[in-house]
């Protein structure tokens, strides 16, 4: 069998290598973002996706471009995977006018109407009810799309989880609920927050199909998501997918992660790194050669470097931008009849 013809999980060689490249890209991107944060070019909160690449890449690769993705504040990865240029994501982190949210959103609020990335939500759990609404909008318009909503194990605790899953199920909406269970909210271990040991009974509580998947196995995630997406697209309603994963860094850049041991972290990093695992599998399957791995690294590095350069060189938002886009006509609180429509107060 020629190396080009190999398929894995129904994907051709190039597709499989693409998944690998995407994981590497996300990893490099986040590492760079961390660096820039330390330098002070990025402010606010910064939540890295490092360690969870297998889940995001596996999931979003199972979608069509016209499908929607809704995410939390840990969404740089989702944004890039959904098609936003890495440079526009980096520029957003830099708070530049060229950022995908014009510099007004920052790390937690990436958005692209064009790519149907319905942004970073910094209110834990909010994305669950919003995704329900997107699912309803799709169904109402009989579109062939679906919506994937990513959320953490902590979001499961919020009332929004309950309300969103129940309505999606009753109305049979085309929503895939993807819990990226990285086993901690901030410092709270999931077993102290949940009264159950997996989400399986929670899915049953909404009469919803459930799938458990190793979030460190990009192909397994891809397969599970493909099935869930197909069900949603075919009118079969929502699915709850639980991907077990781990964030290799603290919750945000500010978190020294005192609530877990360095040992535990080492264990995960050394034996469950989704990129390392995938590379091993690809090499064993004869799909990846050294040069492929190098090529992916080089390409990712180049893209990230370019993104930083772009972000650095991009202009700051103008002062005028401060008052733009509050509402459609920038009305302000007082509707002056004889003054410009943008009161500066």
């Amino acid at each position, binding site marked *: 069998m020629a190396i080009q013809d190999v398929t894995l999980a129904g994907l051709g060689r190039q597709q499989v290598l693409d998944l690998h490249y995407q994981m590497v890209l996300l990893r490099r991107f986040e590492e760079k973002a961390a660096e820039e944060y330390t330098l002070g070019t990025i402010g606010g909160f910064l939540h890295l996706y490092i360690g969870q690449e297998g889940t995001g890449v596996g999931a979003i690769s199972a979608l069509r471009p016209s499908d929607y993705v809704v995410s939390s504040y840990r969404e740089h990865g989702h944004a890039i995977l959904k098609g936003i240029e890495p440079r526009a994501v980096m520029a957003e982190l830099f708070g530049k006018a060229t950022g995908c949210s014009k510099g007004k959103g920052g790390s937690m609020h990436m958005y692209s109407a064009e790519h149907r990335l319905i942004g970073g939500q910094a209110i834990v759990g909010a994305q669950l009810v919003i995704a*329900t*609404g997107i699912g309803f*909008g799709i169904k109402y*318009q009989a579109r062939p799309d679906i919506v994937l909503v990513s959320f953490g194990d902590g979001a499961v605790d919020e009332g929004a989880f309950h*309300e969103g899953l129940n309505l999606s199920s009753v109305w049979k909406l085309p929503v895939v609920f993807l819990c990226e269970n990285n086993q901690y909210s901030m410092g709270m271990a999931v077993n102290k927050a949940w009264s159950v040991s997996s989400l399986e009974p929670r899915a049953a509580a909404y009469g919803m199909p459930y799938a458990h998947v190793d979030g460190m196995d990009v192909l397994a995630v891809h397969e599970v998501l493909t099935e869930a997406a197909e069900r949603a697209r075919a009118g079969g309603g929502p699915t709850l997918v639980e991907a077990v994963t781990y964030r290799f860094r603290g919750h945000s850049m500010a978190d020294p992660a005192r609530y877990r041991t360095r040992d535990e972290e080492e264990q995960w990093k050394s034996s469950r790194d989704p990129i390392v695992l995938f590379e091993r599998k690809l090499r064993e399957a004869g799909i990846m050669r050294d040069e492929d791995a190098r090529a992916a690294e080089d390409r990712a590095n180049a893209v990230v470097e370019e993104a930083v350069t772009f972000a650095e060189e991009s202009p700051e938002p103008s002062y005028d931008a401060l008052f733009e*886009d*509050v*509402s459609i006509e920038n009305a302000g609180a007082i509707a002056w*009849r004889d003054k410009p429509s943008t009161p500066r107060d």
Partner: protein
Amino acid sequence: MRTITYRDALREAISEEMRRDERVYILGEDIAGYGGTYSVTKGLFEDFGEKRVRDTPLAEEVIIGTALGSALTGLRPIAELMTMNFSLLASDQIVNSAAKFRYMFGGQPSLPLVIRMPAGGGAQRGAQHSQTLESWFAHVPGLKVVMPATPYDAKGMLKTAIRDDDPVLFIEHELLYSVKGEVPDEAEEYTVPLNRGIVRREGSDISIVTFSRMVHISLQAAEELAKDGIAAEVIDIRSIRPVDLDLILESVRKTNRVVIAEEGWKYFGTGQGLAAMIYEHGFDWLDAPIQHVTGKDVPMPYSKILERAALPTRDDVVAAVRAIVPQRAAAAAR
């Protein structure tokens, strides 16, 4: 012109807009099978069917989340919250999502979303069912907040709200639904802007600035004051955010005296905000401190006599006017 109720006016607005635009739909608790707690949506289920008239489970956060999410896909939802008291359960979606998405996402999404809800007291429904919290939402940039007082405005402003590309909180009043008023014939299409107040009665001695149900009570007060020769101008601001301050100031320049009348609590509320704006921009025209008629600063009691004492009355408005209008006008009339 016809005479119809506030309730029917709202229903006509919804119905006409749903007919005009396939993207408009309504959702909420008991709006379909039950016909709406205050019968506003009665018959719409029969007319438009299950696809566009959606009874939801009892879950306010996902009602607003659903409206918002669907707006992001291009729909134009009208969500009903059974009363404003329950908007607290959806306040995160209203304030942290609806009010901020356009801005924080760099102007990309439009949020053509109307949230209808009745507010207010007066029917002995107790502390948890009698609130009017418009100032909360009017405080937040990114939201539009309106409170129509008449059937004409109820219909015209709701139509405008539905066509607006921003989230609009459309606050009704439980005791206004059966109030009747003139509205153009059904064939006559009209809308009312969301940022213009209206002078309900002209007068030169005092400007009574008010909104929602207090417009009617203020008009009664004006009637009463007229007997004493005091000519009160009654301004219905209709919109709380954005507010038509020019209209108020024009009146103040004429009367040099202001009474603000509202049903809600006094402190850190709508009326104090209006007072501050009037002082800020009209300080030199004011001949007396602004008087302020409000609900009492207490949770709403159930007891009929206590509730009556808690709510602002016509006599309260009259007394507030008398406190600052010089006696000459009154005297001249006698």
